[in-house]
């Protein structure tokens, strides 16, 4: 068995996982900017740029994810860790997908946000903060298992904040004079953004379990 190529393959894999997590953060930043642009100016030229940007980030992330999956399947041979990491990467990928779907949904459906425009901004910020903390937890899983717990605690806190914002603006929405159809339409956007925080929390919970299995 040749050791050096395997070690270099593992090093490459480590770098790819780091880059993959960078993409998740980047997708969050683009999402934040896109929502802000939509709330302030609606769909105009800059929004189209965000569409292009999030599509590119998501595609690069997907390519990296496939590369990681292939490398884990064929080049490293640790069954337990492989399954855990593959499941983690798949779950994290859902966050990037939710970012992309939301940016596209604003672009395609162009909802009139009316009374909840500032609320949607606040909710988007809370969701991105939750996802960013989840990325920190995921990085810690690979480098510093003992730090995962602290990050997961923060993920839970921010997710709960996001839920509070979602509930508040949901009530605000249904207390408004908008048509029921419009209220239901906007509620979908609230749910869609809140889902980013929920998915991040689920990943945090999964990380807590993985840590218990591996804690030394």
């Amino acid at each position, binding site marked *: 068995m040749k050791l050096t190529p395997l*070690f270099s393959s593992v090093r490459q894999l480590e770098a790819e996982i780091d880059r993959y997590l960078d993409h998740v953060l980047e997708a969050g930043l683009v999402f934040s900017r896109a929502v802000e642009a939509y709330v302030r100016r609606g769909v105009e030229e800059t929004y189209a740029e965000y569409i292009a940007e999030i599509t590119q980030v998501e595609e690069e992330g997907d390519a990296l994810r496939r590369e990681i999956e292939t490398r884990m399947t064929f080049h490293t041979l640790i069954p337990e860790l492989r399954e855990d990491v593959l499941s983690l990467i798949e779950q994290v990928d859902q966050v990037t997908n939710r970012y992309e779907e939301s940016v596209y949904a604003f672009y395609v459906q162009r909802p009139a946000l009316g009374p909840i425009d500032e609320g949607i901004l606040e909710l988007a910020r809370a969701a991105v903060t939750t996802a960013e903390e989840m990325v920190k937890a995921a990085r810690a899983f690979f480098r510093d298992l003992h730090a995962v717990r602290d990050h997961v605690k923060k993920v839970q806190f921010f997710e709960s904040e996001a839920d509070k914002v979602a509930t508040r603006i949901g009530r605000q929405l249904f207390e408004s004079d908008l048509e029921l159809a419009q209220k239901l339409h906007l509620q979908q956007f609230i749910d869609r953004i809140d889902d980013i925080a929920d998915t991040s929390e689920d990943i945090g919970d999964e990380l807590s379990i993985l840590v*218990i299995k591996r804690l030394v």
Partner: protein
Amino acid sequence: MDLWAWFFLTGGLFLGWSLGGNDGANIFGTAVGTRMVRFSTAAFIAGVFVTLGAALSGFGTAGNLGKLGSVGTLLGAFLIAVAAAYAVYWMNRRALPVSTSQTIVGAILGWNVFAGRGVDFGAFGQFLGAWVVTPFLSAALAIALYLPVRGLLRRVRLHLLTLDLLTRYALIAAGAFGAYSLGANNIANVVGVFVPLAGRIFRPLELPGGAVLDPVHQLLLLGGLAIAAGVYNSRRVMMTVGHDLARLNPLAAWVVVVAQSLVLLVFASQRFAQFVASLGLPPPPLVPVSSSQAVVGAVIGLGLLIPGGRVDWGLFGRVAAGWVLAPTTAAVLSLVALYVAQNVFNLPVLP
């Protein structure tokens, strides 16, 4: 070709197969139980190194005929080997790690009783020592080893993938070394008593390149292959050791294997004791230790230390009962088999 010699040899091969099926768990149980190494990989590596150990380094130990050498007749040795092999096989079926060495001694105790030589109570003392002292020593050593290594790893903060790869190689290296020692040390018990018959079983085998494999080495190779084949049957015992008794992490899996080797080195090796004494240091006391009991002790010790270790005390109770049952069963089986062979079939079992 002597068919009787072949027939007798099957007893030894059965013992080798059972031994591999149980002792395979001592070397790769924690690696497979923590899923750091696949069972197929572990069995292949163990099989290769067990065979190499038996064929290359087994001659010294096999030359002294092993434990069965004291029996004196081939039929007696065959019956004792089958009794011990069956007792270990029964434990394998129940997925319990036992000491094959103690089981063989148990079967020989049965022969001693049958031959009217009385019971060697020294052996009981050794058994008790191994059952009680080894697990504690091993658990203490495993914990003493685990804590500083864990501290070091926390400080170094290797990437999890690198750490797992290193742990995996360390487990494979330790397992390969353990398998080599298993083959070298146990082949005497498996085929030692048949060494004088080797010429009646095998002819010198010419290998490509002009080398000749003599009958004794063919016998050792066959015995090694029997142990290796047994290792392929050790998955359930491995899971008891590495997964069911306590939940270990990859580092603990490695520490268990190292602690086991250290226990055998420090408390059972006369050479090591002499070496320590030659340095002017007080030598460690030599106590009867067994690798199966050392592994179980280390697993329990670390299972208690690690958060979420969840030691299964009920299973430990069954394992401990197995330690008593295996030699006892072997003793009773060999006594009955010898009695039946002599008194029912009129066969000469005593020298």
